[in-house]
């Protein structure tokens, strides 16, 4: 689904001493099927932004469109339920939302709230549990007996079982070990392609933004600071550092190569092995000139 923000502002507790402008006149859009990374320092408005995507909050000013659903300041949307079925949100530390006696019931919770039939739910539960790489034996266990990483996967499966068109991920890998992080991110990338989802990823990891996203939005104090293709964005080292963000390691390294060897290698998502080969060629080639 196409997502459009049209001059969206959001204010917490307006007209009180605790008034806080979380989003200020935010405008951007991305088309159906894109993988967007939202980056920003703590307090830049990322979490507020994603809460607009399924109508948990309403813009104080401006309008948000998600596909055919519209959230407009001051107007009540009567189709919030439908919207929430279409937009699945994986919150930070989603394992905190588990509550059922068995993993199966917890995964089925979302779809049954949206009135999906029983047969269908069974099917979806199985699909979801295998999508997050857990075995079906787990379904009958209590979610509270699982390890932290497994609980996270069960919670994600609970969102996937809703079969959403838009997947919103709020730092889905926070607090996992590096291997778990990669597995989960690869899983989301695969689902994104397979189901042609529109994915919005909130992250602190520049590496993840570079590896998985095709569009990057950098927020600063509730405003769009930079926006564009990841490769373009991550070239601007100074601009990033001024909002306390780092350049991904790969880009940093290639920049270093360019400065010391005066040879340009452009990054197009190569693996480390491929880059090493290219670099070897450059170095050898350079020697040939001498």
């Amino acid at each position, binding site marked *: 689904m196409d997502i459009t923000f049209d001059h969206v502002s959001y204010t917490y507790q307006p007209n009180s001493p605790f008034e806080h402008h979380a989003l200020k006149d935010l405008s951007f859009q991305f088309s159906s099927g894109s993988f967007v990374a939202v980056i920003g320092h703590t307090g830049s408005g990322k979490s507020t932004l994603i809460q607009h995507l399924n109508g948990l909050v309403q813009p104080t000013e401006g309008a948000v469109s998600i596909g055919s659903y519209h959230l407009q300041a001051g107007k009540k949307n009567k189709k919030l339920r439908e919207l929430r079925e279409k937009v699945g949100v994986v919150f930070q530390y*989603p394992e905190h*939302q588990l509550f059922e006696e068995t993993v199966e019931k917890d995964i089925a919770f*979302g779809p049954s709230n949206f009135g999906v039939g029983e047969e269908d739910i069974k099917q979806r539960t199985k699909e979801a549990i295998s999508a997050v790489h857990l075995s079906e034996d787990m379904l009958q266990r209590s979610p509270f007996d699982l390890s932290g990483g497994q609980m996270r996967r069960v919670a994600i499966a609970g969102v996937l079982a809703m079969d959403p068109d838009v997947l919103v991920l709020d730092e889905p890998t926070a607090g996992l070990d590096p291997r778990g992080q990669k597995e989960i991110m690869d899983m989301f990338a695969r689902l994104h392609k397979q189901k042609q989802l529109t994915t919005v990823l909130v992250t602190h990891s520049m590496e993840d933004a570079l590896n998985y996203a095709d569009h990057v939005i950098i927020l600063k104090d509730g405003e769009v600071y930079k926006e564009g293709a990841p490769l373009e964005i991550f070239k601007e080292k100074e601009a990033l550092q001024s909002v306390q963000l780092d350049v991904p390691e790969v880009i940093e390294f290639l920049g270093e190569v360019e400065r010391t060897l005066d040879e340009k290698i452009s990054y197009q998502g190569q693996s480390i092995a491929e880059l090493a080969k290219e670099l070897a060629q450059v170095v050898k080639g350079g020697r040939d000139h001498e």
Partner: protein
Amino acid sequence: MSSSMMIGQYIPAGSFIHKLDPRTKIAIIFFFVVIVFFANSVMSYGLLTLFAVGSAFATKIRVRYILKGLKPVWFLIAFTFLLHLFVTREGEVIATVFGWELYREALIQGSTISLRFFLLIMVTSLLTLTTTPIEITDAIEQLLGPFKRFRFPAHELALMMSISLRFIPTLMQETEKISKAQASRGVDFRTGSFKDRIKAVIPLLVPLFVSAFKRAEELAMAMEARGYKGGEGRTKLRELHIGWKDYVVYGLFILLMAGLFLTRN
């Protein structure tokens, strides 16, 4: 989070009253509550009101905030007044409205009881407005200290109070977070039948309890790791001191009591 839900509505203003020892404030309020019931003349009520209003101004907190804090009790005060107006049937009739007789005693009783009510609530709310919750618990621990001899767990009580106060905002944040997560999974907390809404609370309560227990366990472990073993022989980071300001207040209060007993009928 809405500001009306704030607990312990401490407002820093750095006034004379803020800087008083919390024990002084608690003691004064305790005795004030007692002497309010001794007033029985216009002058004595006037003195008490003067003291309460004077203290309120001395806090340097804007009157608007103080009155806002009293919002929930205005209704109670008005209700008490009206109740007395209708129920008390003593003294002479001073007016008749549509066949209903207004008695003199009813008017007097109604106003004095409402005024007492107002004074009590006003003065106690000044305590929470000018004293941080942690100061109040420290003071309570000290004031209850003498009862330790009778095995009264003063330290444990104060510890429990400060821990629960500390975790109120945390739990509120957690509640908001989980209710948003469940709303995203299609739970509707706002509409539906009564039964549906009760059912909708379960997905909120279970995770909340789970995390509260987890937090309690972690806190206990962290305390033990840092050598906590109860109140025995424990020194304080914030020590309470009675200073000249407190003596001034005690002096004023004794004057108030003397004035009160002189102006009584």
